[in-house]
C-alpha cells in the first residue's frame, strides 16, 4: 500500500477538491493523521494548495465519555435499585460522585420514588416504573458518531450545562491541487550528505526547505560575567589613555593608608564602625615608614606644609587598626608614596578597578562590597582644567558627552568636584562620579616635590552597569543569586554604544539613510551631466500590513511645528508611532517634541521620527525618497494622506486653488523673519487663511514659520487660533 501522503494525492487527483474531514472519512482514519499528511505535502512546495476553515463541533467531555460507556447517571441509579427497594444511604454509598445528580435526575424523570416506611429508619428507594430507556446515552452515542445534527439543539445545550458535552472549534483543511501537482512524491532529502557530494547527485536533488522561522540550536558555550565584561571595557579605555594598572589586590588595609595618609581626620564619620569593616584578626598593623608616619601625625595635629592642620591629638592606635579598605584611593596613596621615594619624580598615570567594602545598610542599589574605578594623574603643573579635560576624555570614550561639574567636599581633594552627566532616558542630570585635586597635606608629607599636582577621579563599576543593562536590583548583577540565564543572554559589551535598543535602531536607520542620500546625490549629479530632468518624488504608498519609516531631520533652531499639525491629521487615517531624538551633532533639541501616540512601533503603519541634527534645511527621508525643505515635507505628507482619504489640504483641491497654495509656498521659501512677517500679515489681512477662505497646507507651513521666528502680532495670533480650531475638527 502506498503511504498516506501519496494516497491523499491520488484521492485529490480523483475528486479534484476535498477536505481533511472527507479524507478522514474516506480513509477511515483519525483526522489528525490526515492533517499530518497534509502538512508534509505542504512542505514539498506547490504540490497542493490548502486553505484553512473552521468548524464548530460538539464533543463529549470526559464525563460524557463515561456516560457513553456506563450509561447515564440516572440510568445507573435506576439499575442499582433491586425489586424490593433499597435504603437511600446504602444506595448513595454505592455510587461515586455522580450519585447525587443521577438520583435527582431519576426523581425528576419519575423513574424512582422514596418511601418512608419506618419513622426511625432511613428512607427506602423504590422503582416507580419497570423499565427505562436511557436517552442520554443514546444521544451521546449519536453525537460521538458525528450525527449530532439529529439531536435537538436544546438538548445539546442541556448536556453542555451538565458538562457532558462541550463545543469545540476544529480547524479543517480544504485541498486543491497546486501548480506543481503530482501524484508521485519524491521524498525530498533534508540535508546535504557526503554521498550526494561524492556521487554528484546534489545537482539534481531537491532539498526539503528549511523552516527559517524557527530558532537555531543553542551553542552551549561558556559565558563571561556581564559586570566583568564591562570591567574589561573600562580597563581597555584606561589603557588606551596611557594609564598603568595599580596593584589593588590587597583587600585588608590599615587605617593609616586608608585614612590617615589621605589626611582624613581620625574623628571623621567614615572611620566609624557604622561605615567601615574593621578586622578582629589580624587586628592591627604597625610597620609604617617611620619618618612618613611622623609627618602625617604632624600635618593632622599641628599642620605644616602651608596648612593649619586639624588641631587634634593624633593617635597611632587609631591609625594601626586594620580594616577592609573602603576605597581604592588607599592603593593610590601607596603608589604615590612609592613614587615619591624614587630619586627623581616621574609623571604617573595610574588606574585600578577593584573591590572596596562599606559596612553600609544594604538595599537594592547598595551592597557591602562593590567595585571602584579610580584614575590618578600626577605631574608638575596640572590644573583643575586638566582634571576636567581628563574626565571629559574618559567619559567621551564611554559614549557620555554631556558632563558638568558641581563643587563638593571630600577630605583629601581640594578642589573637589562631583561629576554629573545628562541622562536622556531619565531626562535629568545624574551624579556619576567624584573627582578633584589631591590636597597638599596628603602629597607633601609623602615627599612628592612641590609643584607636582595630582588629579584623581573615581566612580563605581556597578552603577553605570546597572543603568546600561536596566537592572534594578544589584543582587541580580553580582553575588551568588545571579541568574545564570541572564549571564548567558547578556550581549557583548560595547560600552560607547547607546544602551537603548530603540536608540540603536535609529542610529542604524540613520546610517542607512545617509548612504542612500549619498548615492542619490551622486545619481542626481550624474543625471545633471547627462541632461536628464529629475521627476518630482511622489509619496511612497503605505500598503496593508506594510509599514513606512518616515524620518524628518531638522535644525533645532527651526523646529518643524507644522509636523505636529500634520500628525494630528495623519492620525485620523494611519496608525502612527512617533519618536523624537537629538543627534550628537547638536547640543540641544529643538522646542518641538512630537506628541507620543499609543501605537506601538510594531503595529504602526507609519513610524514618524523627528531627529534634531546639524542639517541646513528640514529634510524628510522615507524609503528611497528624500525631500528637502519644510514646504516639501508638508507636500509629501499631504500626498501620503491623499492616498487613503482626501486631506482637503492640497492636491485634491481644484487646480486653481492648488496653484494659489503653491504660490504661497513658493513665497515662503525665503524663511527670513522679515519675509515671513510681511507675506503672512499681507495675506491674512484680506482673507481668513493664507490661501483663501479655507485652511490649506500653506497655513500649516506659514504658522510653523511664525512660531519659529516667534512672530506674535495680534492678527497672526487670531489666525493661528483659527488654524488650531480647524485642526481640532
Amino acid at each position: 500500500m502506498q503511504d498516506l501522503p501519496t494516497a491523499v494525492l491520488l484521492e485529490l487527483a480523483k475528486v479534484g477538491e476535498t477536505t481533511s474531514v472527507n479524507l478522514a472519512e474516506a480513509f477511515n482514519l483519525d483526522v489528525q493523521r490526515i492533517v499530518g499528511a497534509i502538512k508534509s505535502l505542504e512542505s514539498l512546495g506547490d504540490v497542493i494548495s490548502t486553505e484553512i476553515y473552521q468548524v464548530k463541533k460538539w464533543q463529549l467531555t470526559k464525563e460524557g465519555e463515561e456516560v457513553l460507556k456506563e450509561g447515564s447517571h440516572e440510568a445507573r441509579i435506576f439499575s442499582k435499585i433491586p425489586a424490593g427497594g433499597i435504603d437511600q444511604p446504602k444506595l448513595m454509598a454505592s455510587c461515586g460522585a455522580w450519585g447525587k445528580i443521577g438520583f435527582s435526575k431519576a426523581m425528576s424523570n419519575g423513574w424512582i420514588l422514596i418511601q418512608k416506611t419506618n419513622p426511625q429508619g432511613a428512607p427506602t428507594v423504590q422503582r416507580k416504573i419497570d423499565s427505562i430507556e436511557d436517552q442520554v446515552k443514546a444521544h451521546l452515542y449519536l453525537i460521538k458518531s458525528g450525527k449530532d445534527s439529529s439531536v435537538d439543539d436544546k438538548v445539546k445545550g442541556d448536556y453542555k450545562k451538565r458538562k457532558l458535552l462541550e463545543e469545540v472549534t476544529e480547524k479543517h483543511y480544504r485541498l486543491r491541487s497546486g501548480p506543481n501537482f503530482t501524484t508521485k512524491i519524491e521524498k525530498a532529502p533534508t540535508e546535504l550528505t557526503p554521498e550526494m557530494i561524492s556521487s554528484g547527485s546534489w545537482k539534481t536533488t531537491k532539498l526539503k526547505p528549511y523552516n527559517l522561522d524557527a530558532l537555531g540550536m543553542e551553542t552551549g558555550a561558556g559565558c563571561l560575567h556581564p559586570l566583568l565584561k564591562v570591567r574589561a571595557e573600562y580597563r581597555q579605555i584606561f589603557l588606551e589613555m596611557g594609564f598603568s594598572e595599580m596593584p589593588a589586590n590587597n583587600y585588608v588595609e590599615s587605617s593609616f593608608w586608608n585614612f590617615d595618609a589621605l589626611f582624613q581626620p581620625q574623628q571623621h564619620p567614615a572611620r566609624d564602625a557604622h561605615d567601615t569593616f574593621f578586622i578582629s584578626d589580624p587586628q592591627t598593623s604597625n610597620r609604617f615608614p617611620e619618618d612618613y608616619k611622623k609627618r602625617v601625625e604632624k600635618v593632622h595635629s599641628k599642620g605644616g606644609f602651608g596648612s593649619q592642620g586639624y588641631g587634634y591629638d593624633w593617635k597611632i592606635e587609631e591609625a594601626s587598626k586594620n580594616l577592609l579598605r573602603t576605597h581604592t584611593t588607599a592603593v593610590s596613596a601607596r603608589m604615590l608614596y612609592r613614587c615619591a621615594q624614587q630619586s627623581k619624580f616621574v609623571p604617573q598615570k595610574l588606574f585600578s578597578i577593584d573591590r572596596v567594602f562599606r559596612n553600609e545598610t544594604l538595599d537594592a542599589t547598595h551592597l557591602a562590597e562593590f567595585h571602584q574605578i579610580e584614575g590618578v594623574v600626577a605631574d608638575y603643573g596640572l590644573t583643575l582644567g586638566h582634571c576636567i579635560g581628563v574626565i571629559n576624555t574618559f567619559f567621551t570614550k564611554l559614549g557620555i558627552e554631556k558632563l558638568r561639574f558641581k563643587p563638593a567636599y571630600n577630605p583629601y581633594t581640594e578642589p573637589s568636584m562631583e561629576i554629573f552627566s545628562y541622562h536622556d532616558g531619565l531626562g535629568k542630570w545624574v551624579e556619576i562620579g567624584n573627582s578633584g585635586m589631591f590636597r597638599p597635606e596628603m602629597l607633601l608629607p609623602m615627599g612628592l616635590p612641590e609643584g607636582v599636582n595630582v588629579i584623581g577621579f573615581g566612580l563605581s563599576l556597578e552603577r553605570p552597569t546597572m543603568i546600561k543593562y536596566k537592572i534594578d536590583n544589584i543582587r541580580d548583577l553580582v553575588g551568588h543569586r545571579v541568574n545564570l540565564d541572564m549571564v548567558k543572554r547578556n550581549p557583548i559589551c560595547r560600552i560607547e554604544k547607546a544602551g537603548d535598543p530603540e536608540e540603536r535602531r535609529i542610529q542604524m536607520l540613520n546610517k542607512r539613510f545617509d548612504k542612500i542620500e549619498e548615492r542619490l546625490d551622486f545619481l542626481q549629479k550624474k543625471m545633471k551631466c547627462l541632461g536628464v530632468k529629475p521627476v518630482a518624488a511622489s509619496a511612497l504608498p503605505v500598503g496593508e500590513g506594510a509599514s513606512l519609516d518616515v524620518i524628518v531631520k531638522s535644525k533645532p533652531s527651526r523646529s518643524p511645528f507644522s509636523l505636529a499639525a500634520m500628525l494630528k491629521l495623519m492620525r485620523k487615517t494611519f496608525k502612527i508611532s512617533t519618536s523624537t531624538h537629538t543627534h550628537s551633532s547638536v547640543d540641544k533639541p529643538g522646542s518641538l517634541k512630537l506628541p507620543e501616540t499609543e501605537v506601538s512601533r510594531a503595529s504602526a503603519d507609519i513610524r514618524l521620527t523627528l531627529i534634531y541634527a546639524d542639517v541646513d534645511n528640514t529634510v524628510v527621508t522615507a524609503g528611497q525618497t528624500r525631500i528637502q525643505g519644510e514646504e516639501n515635507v508638508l507636500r509629501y505628507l499631504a500626498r501620503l494622506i491623499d492616498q487613503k482619504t482626501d486631506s482637503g489640504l492640497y492636491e485634491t483641491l481644484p487646480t486653481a486653488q492648488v496653484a494659489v497654495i503653491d504660490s504661497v509656498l513658493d513665497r515662503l521659501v525665503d524663511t527670513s523673519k522679515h519675509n515671513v512677517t510681511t507675506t503672512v500679515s499681507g495675506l491674512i489681512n484680506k482673507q481668513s487663511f493664507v490661501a483663501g477662505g479655507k485652511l490649506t497646507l500653506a497655513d500649516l507651513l506659514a504658522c510653523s514659520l511664525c512660531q519659529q521666528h516667534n512672530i506674535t502680532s495680534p492678527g497672526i495670533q487670531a489666525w493661528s487660533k483659527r488654524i488650531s480650531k480647524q485642526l481640532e475638527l
Partner: protein
Amino acid sequence: MPTISIKREVLFQGLGQRYTEEEFDELCFEFGLELDEVVTEKDDNGKEEVVYKIEIGANRYDLLCVEGLVRALLVFQSKISIPKYELSKPGKLERLEVDPSVDCVRPHVIGAVLRGVTFTKERYDSFIELQDKLHQNLARKRTLASVGTHDLDTIKGPFKYMAKAPKDIKFVPLNHTKEFTSAELMELYSTDSHLKAYLPIIRDSPVYPVIYDANNVVLSLPPITNSEHSKITLKTKNVFIECTCTDLTKGKVVLDTLVTMFSQYCTKPFSIEPVETVSKGQTSVHPTLKYRTETIKSESVNGLVGVNQTPTEIATLLSKMCLESKVNKDNTITVTIPPTRHDVIHPCDIYEDVAIAYGYNNIVKTTPQTLTVAQQLPINKLTDQLRESVAQSGFTEALTFSLCSRDDVAAKMRKKIENIPAVHIANPKTLEFQVARTALLPGLLKTVQANRKMPLPLKLFEISDVVHKDLGTEVGARNERHLAAVFYNKTPGFEIIHGLLDRVMQLLEVPLSMDKSTSGYYLQSSEDASYFPGRAAEIVAYGQVIGRLGVLHPEVITGFDLNLPCSALEINIEPFL
C-alpha cells in the same frame, strides 16, 4: 553629607527674591549645594508649607542654618557685603570657673553671650536646629563638644563647671517639672529615642559633668540635657551659651559658628559678648572670633585652577565666597578668613573658592601633556586571558562576594574555622560578612544552589581573589588569585573537571610530568575533608602544591542545599606569573 530643611517662604524672604525650583536648583549647583528634595509639610497650625531639603558639604558648618545659607548666597550674588563679626567690650565679663574634677570626663568649657536677641518662632526653631546639626556632624554626636543655651536673666554668674557623683546632681531637666538626680535621668532617658544615644558618653564615668550658677542652680548636665529653669523662650533677650568639649578645637568651631550665625538678631547685629574661662589659674577668653589672613599669589591660583585671572579679578571672586581679599602692591593677594570659615585650613581651600566663584563649568578643558606608557598589572592580564579561555572551554563565569559567613568556609566545607587562615571582621552587621573568603568554592556552590532550576549540567568558574591571614606581610593578610570551577550533574564528571585542569595547564605551557617530578604538573592522591574519600587529589606544579580537585563530599553537597554529585577544582594561579 548633612541635609537641612528650610521653609521655602523663609528662604525666599531672606534672599529677597522668588525663584522657580529650577532656578534655585541651578543656583545651588553652582555654589556646590544640592537641592535634594522638595516636600510639602504641615506646620504647627496645620497649614501646608513647601520645604526645601538642601544637601550641604560636610565641611561647611556655616551653611547649616537658613541664616548662614542666605548670608552666603547673598554674598555670592554680590547683593550684600560680607558682615564683620565683632566682640563687644563690656565692663565685666561673665565667667566660667573650671574645677579640675572634670578632667577625667569632659575637660573643657567655653562660653559666649548674645545680648538683646529678638526671637521669633522661626528664628527660635532655627537656633535649636543649628545646635542639633552641629552636635550631629562636627561634634560627632556630642562626643567631641556640646552646647547648652540659657536665658541669662534667669541665672547669675560666675558659673562653676565641675564633676560630681551621679547621685549628687539634682535638678529639673528640660521639659520636666520634677527634680531628678542625674543617676535617675540615665534611667529616665534610656527609653528616650532622641537622648538615649548620648547617655553612653558619660554613663559609666564615676562622676558626671555639671554647670552651676552662683546660686547653685544647675544650668546643664553636659552633654545630655539642660535645666528647665534656665530654658530660653521666645521672650528671652540675653542668651548665655556654654560649650563643653573633649576636643577644644572642635568646641571653638561650634561656638564660633553658633554665635556668628545668631548674632544677626542681636540689638547690635554681629556683635558678640565674650566669656572668660578660668581653669587651673589660667584665664582665657572665648570666642576669639579670630580673623586669619593668608597671602596668596595669583600665579598659584591660576596654576592650580587652570584659568588666567588678574589679582583684582581673583580678589573679586573671593569676596563672593565670604573671603574678603585685597591686592597688595607686589600683586600678592591678602585673604581674610572669617571665623565662619573654619574649613579654610590651606591656601588650596582658597583656590577652590576662586574656582567655584569662577564657575567649574566655565573652566576651559585641557588635556595634560603627561606622557606615560600604559602597563597592565601582570596578574590581572593573566586573569583576563584565563577567563576567556575557561569560558571558551564551556564554563560560565560567576561573580561571588569576597565576604561570607564562617560556616561557608568552614562547617559547610567540613572544616574547622580554627584551622583556616581566615581574616575575621570585627563588626559585621549580618552573618554574611563574618570573614573574608579563603576559597572560591563556597561562593560557586551557593551560585549553583541559586540556579538549581537551570538545565544540567551546570559548569561554573570564577577567577578572583581570596584573602589569607599571613603574618609575614605588612598588614598581616594578603590576597591570592584563585581559579575555581565546579561541574554539577547527575554524574560526578570528575573527568570534565580534570579535563579543564589539563586544558588550563596546556594554556599555561605546563607539561604533564609522567614521572611526578618537578618537570611539570601531576596529580597525587590526597585526602581532604571537603572531598569524597578516595576521590580527591592535590595538584602539584613544578613541585609545588597549587590546589586540589576531586568529587565533593556528600555532606558538603547537602550542606549547600544541593542533591547531585559535584566535582570541583580550585588552584592558586599566582605561581604561573
